[in-house]
């Protein structure tokens, strides 16, 4: 395997609030290979978004504090990089697209002006060259009249179109990594299918790596090569989609899969996960899934499990593995 383009080691990011320390990300490690899609699955409060935004410097540092770890992008530790270095990387080598395309675009500027911005800023293109590249990018994401689109304002577009514009904007600089944070959650399912197709096609063309954050297991099954399952700031399981969907070794992943309604079968019953997601400011050192886990042991309450490798490239963090 070639060297990973992004390697995060034991990242810890905590929010210091009046109510206490919220351990939003508590010891997450993962790697992303060039050209692959890593899906990060988790519910709200799992830390899946904070994890990515923290090492990119997109969260103000108070109240966030990086309590440890490394985030190596092509060998450079982003956590120790200077703000100027980070500014050169963001939007250029590492691009992000977000859930709400309406708020990601400036409503007062035409699409064209916003699209050429990263090119002019990072790639030293002239306005004319940038305009051409941007138009081509719009065509690549399936917008039928790129020239007209360049001159239009964001409010003239529907949600799906705006998200295509965001993708175009993220890809004009030919980044090495694209981080997509719930990009299709706010879209209709037919539009979502279109956007996911575009992302897959563009990824195949450019060879970039994609980190795809979502809570939707169906989407992850369709787009990811490998999957990370996060819960309450911790990593529970990681492996290929084959591993995680068919041979999961973690009670949470299994429970999540069982409790997700499917469109291809009629399910007589849906075993729900009981209880509530934990309060992140009141975590003990044990497994955060302890109270809701149907198979917990006493040790789970006090100690977070070590890593176990049921198969090569498939790891799981659960005390149940110990007995085996």
């Amino acid at each position, binding site marked *: 395997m070639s060297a990973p383009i992004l390697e995060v080691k034991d990242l810890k990011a905590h929010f210091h*609030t*009046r109510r206490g320390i919220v351990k939003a990300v508590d010891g997450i490690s993962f790697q992303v290979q060039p050209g692959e899609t890593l899906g990060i699955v988790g519910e709200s409060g799992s830390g899946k978004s904070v994890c990515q935004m923290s090492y990119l410097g997109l969260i103000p540092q108070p109240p966030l504090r990086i309590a440890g770890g490394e985030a190596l992008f092509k060998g450079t530790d982003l956590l120790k990089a200077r703000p100027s270095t980070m500014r050169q990387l963001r939007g250029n080598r590492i691009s992000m697209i977000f859930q709400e395309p309406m708020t990601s675009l400036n409503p007062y500027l035409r699409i064209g002006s916003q699209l050429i911005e990263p090119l002019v800023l990072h790639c030293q293109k002239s306005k004319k060259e940038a305009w051409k590249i941007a138009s081509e990018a719009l065509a690549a994401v399936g917008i039928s009249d790129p020239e007209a689109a360049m001159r239009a304002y964001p409010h003239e577009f529907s949600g799906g179109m705006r998200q295509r514009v965001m993708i175009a904007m993220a890809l004009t600089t030919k980044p090495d990594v694209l981080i997509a944070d719930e990009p299709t959650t706010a879209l209709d399912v037919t539009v979502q299918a279109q956007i996911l197709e575009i992302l897959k096609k563009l990824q195949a063309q450019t060879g970039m790596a994609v980190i795809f954050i979502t809570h939707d297991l169906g989407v992850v099954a369709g787009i990811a090569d490998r999957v990370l399952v996060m819960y309450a700031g911790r990593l529970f399981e990681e492996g290929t989609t084959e591993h995680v969907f068919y041979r999961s070794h973690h009670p949470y992943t299994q429970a999540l899969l069982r409790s997700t309604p499917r469109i291809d079968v009629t399910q007589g019953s849906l075993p729900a*996960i009981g*209880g*509530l997601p934990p309060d992140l400011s009141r975590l003990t050192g044990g497994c955060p899934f302890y*109270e*809701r886990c149907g198979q917990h042991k006493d040790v789970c309450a006090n100690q977070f499990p070590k890593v176990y490798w049921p198969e090569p490239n498939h790891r799981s963090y659960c005390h149940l593995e110990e007995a085996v």
Partner: protein
Amino acid sequence: MSSDGISLYPPTPAPAPASAMVPSEDAMEEAGVSLWQDAFRRLFKNRLAMGGFFFLVFLTLVCILTPWIAPYSFDQQNLQYTLQPPSWTHWMGTDVLGRDLFTRVLYGGRISMLVGILASIVSVIVGVVYGSVSGFIGGRTDNLMMRFVDILYALPFIFLVIILMVYFGRNIFLLFIALGLTQWLTMARIVRGQVISLKHKEFVQAAESMGVPAHSIIFRHLIPNSLGPVIVYLTLTVPSVILDEAFLSFLGLGVQAPMASWGTLISNGVEAMEVAPWLLIFPATLLSLSLFSLNFLGDGLRDALDPKGARD
């Protein structure tokens, strides 16, 4: 459900779904913490607001106890001791007619505070009812009601008050009402804005779909949820009214001599500024301190009641 009325009692106990049980319930305390309690907790931590609050409490107490505290009577003249600077017998000095300034400041405070509070209450009652009804009904009625408000807004209040004073004579209660009536307009707009944004919230729709009548919706749902901005604006109305009254008195339209409000005292003080500056400094300082306190309290309340800050 069966038709015997009390069908929420199942004939055989229905098995509660195990997955519905909330294991962390034991962690819940008994009584709830309302949003008001939460807001007051935050307010208590705001030192400026609390400072202002205590000053106002102190001032109110002093004003209530004035007849017992004041060393002299407010119209007691002593022509041998006119324009005396502050001394042990006259803590704030005397004015041009030998009246004790301290006494007059105390009595003046009573008038000013009374005007402020009563006029504000008038403005709140009229404004809240008018604004909430207008906002709730909506449509053309709302349009008409608000255009009426716009028209009143355009009238300079001072003329209104002058006309009222001239027509009905100079009566202190009239003064309160007149000043209150100038302030209700903004209050009505604020409340209407709140009500309109609340009207479409789902808890109001839920009440409608249950058959809750309109007046209940307005008084039980809309007004309590609008109180935040109302309270904040109230603490800003009071200083506004006190200043208006001071202005009127300055012009000679407010309370009549020998009764004095801070406004008249300041007006007199300005005239005697070069000879007896204390006549201006004391009432002006007290007026300013009161206004500052009200403003700090208002700011503190606004921050405390901001729902975004509640979920920390």
